[in-house]
């Protein structure tokens, strides 16, 4: 399923989506793909929020069965015939997933989905929100149709500058704001922005947004609206808490613990350069001859340029070998076998650099909501002879 040239751009599939049987297999969980022994980390029992354990970050594609899950609100029922309404200047289209694939070209992108709050628990001082470790991320192939094709088919209104997005999930009571987001029109028309119906070649599962979700490669998870049920091109950005207050970052770096005025905040869009070590895990005991550092590295802002590994706590660094196609918003695997590591305690660290020269800091800059942590991932291991 990986794109040959590796760019996070769509690959055209001429064959029509096979309506019918594929969606009949849609399920609430990805459990039918799960293998015995596969685990997830339960961040919340309701709504269901799950983190991917670190050892799964040793491959290019994260299996759906162990792919993290984040939902703000109670999940809607599984409805393979749920419709997406596309409101335009010429017409309003109402299509289910089958209809989307009948009318529009099928496209596949490979991209990282990362929650804005991934690794929030590492911010100091702590801030409210799900206290994720590093497991709120994964890479999948996403198959669907281009959002731009849908919007153009319905007709773009004059003066449109943003695209408003609504999912079918509803807050537990009407006094709680709905999860309404918008993305700038240019980003909506980008050929990599798709309404996906499949993940890793199989129908989306309910927890991953079935039957339709948005994919915005390189942008943080709040833009990847699940259970997508309405889109509209319009002049203004979205109103409401989840756009005007939530998911905002200070325009300038601030001191940890600062209060930041709303006028000094701006919407969070892309995720910065980072790497995560899949193995060895923290606390591992590894024979010197078997010590190999494996993980993933990516950025939503530029292509990956380099991954370095340290086995002395960040004093000296060696470049790691990379595998997989490079691209904006997609990850590559890195591997490194350090030579001559002496038995004893070893502090392993990884840091990545992007093609614009942005390099992972040891400690991520703090922000009031604990978004986009990207500090070095460091693990302590004991090396034996």
């Amino acid at each position: 399923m990986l794109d040959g040239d590796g760019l996070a751009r769509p690959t055209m599939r001429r064959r029509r989506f096979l309506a019918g049987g594929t969606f009949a297999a849609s399920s609430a969980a990805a459990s039918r793909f799960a293998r015995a022994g596969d685990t997830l980390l339960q961040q919340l029992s309701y709504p269901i929020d799950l983190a991917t354990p670190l050892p799964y970050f040793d491959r290019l594609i994260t299996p759906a069965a162990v792919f993290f899950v984040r939902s703000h609100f109670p999940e809607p029922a599984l409805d393979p015939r749920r419709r997406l309404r596309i409101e335009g200047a010429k017409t309003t289209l109402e299509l289910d997933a089958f209809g989307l694939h009948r009318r529009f070209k099928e496209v596949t992108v490979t991209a990282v989905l990362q929650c804005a709050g991934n690794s929030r628990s590492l911010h100091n001082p702590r801030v409210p929100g799900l206290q994720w470790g590093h497991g709120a991320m994964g890479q999948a192939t996403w198959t669907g149709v281009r959002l731009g094709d849908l919007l153009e088919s319905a007709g773009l209104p004059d003066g449109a500058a943003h695209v408003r997005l609504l999912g079918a999930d509803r807050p537990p009571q009407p006094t709680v704001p709905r999860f309404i987001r918008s993305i700038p029109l240019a980003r909506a028309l980008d050929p990599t922005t798709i309404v996906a119906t499949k993940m890793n070649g199989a129908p989306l599962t309910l927890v991953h947004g079935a039957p339709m979700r948005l994919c915005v490669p390189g942008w943080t998870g709040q833009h990847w609206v699940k259970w997508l049920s309405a889109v509209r091109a319009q002049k203004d950005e979205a109103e409401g808490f989840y756009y005007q207050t939530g998911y905002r970052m200070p325009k300038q770096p601030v001191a940890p613990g600062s209060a930041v005025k709303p006028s000094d905040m701006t919407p969070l869009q892309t995720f910065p350069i980072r790497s995560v070590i899949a193995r060895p895990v923290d606390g591992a005991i590894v024979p010197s001859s078997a010590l190999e550092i494996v993980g993933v590295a990516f950025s939503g802002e530029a292509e990956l340029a380099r991954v370095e590994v340290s086995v002395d706590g960040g004093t000296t660094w060696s470049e790691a070998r990379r595998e997989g196609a490079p691209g904006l918003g997609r990850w590559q695997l890195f591997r490194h076998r350090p030579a001559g590591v002496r038995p004893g305690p070893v502090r392993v660290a990884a840091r990545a650099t992007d093609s614009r020269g942005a390099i992972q800091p040891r400690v991520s800059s703090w922000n009031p909501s604990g978004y986009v942590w990207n500090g070095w991932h460091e693990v302590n291991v004991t090396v034996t002879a």
Partner: protein
Amino acid sequence: MRGPAFAFRAFGVSLAFMACDGGRPQGPPPPPARAPSSLPAPPSLAPLTDRDRTEAAALVANDCQACHAPEMLAQQRLTGTQWAAVIKKMQGWGSPLPPDSAALVARYLGALYSPSSVPPAATPFEPKAVAARDAASTLAALPDRRFRGGSAAKGQVIYAAGCAGCHGADATGTPLGVGLTDRPLLYRAAELAAVVRTGRGRMPASPHLSDDDLASLLAYLRRLRPVAQW
């Protein structure tokens, strides 16, 4: 100092377990996951009396955990001031927490889940590992079996009489009861029937409802399919 801190933490754990099953007592609390540390109790604990804790625990179970899983609270490491800000936000969103109880609950949560809690602020929260096969099993549809063939018209009457007061006339929820439209639970008839018959949290039990009554209630609720409204 060590004794009270230990007892309090154990109480917190039992609170979390009660809430997992709708707030009903579950027998003796399990032992705490970690040995009690030798750290003194946080200073903010001192002003809370046993009565305060009992009252605050009940408020949290009834007024927070209808929407928030207990883990949502347990993974936070916030100061009393931060907790007060969180509660103020939730009150703005329609939390049923009585306004004059907000300060008590902020102090209580600030003592339970503070930066000096165990694990300490420097340690990431460690969520429970679950089998991937089971991770989202609570959302999967189940066969209706005994709850087939209900009458939506009859269900509407049952809903209006027994449910609408808290869950809302249109079943989209109120501060006293969560929304029920378009939810996976509507396709898990036996589970929904058990909740209705035995109650959950502040929701009273309705043991008098027959299988046919519940089938009708389900038939009605499944018809309430909201359209996507901005």
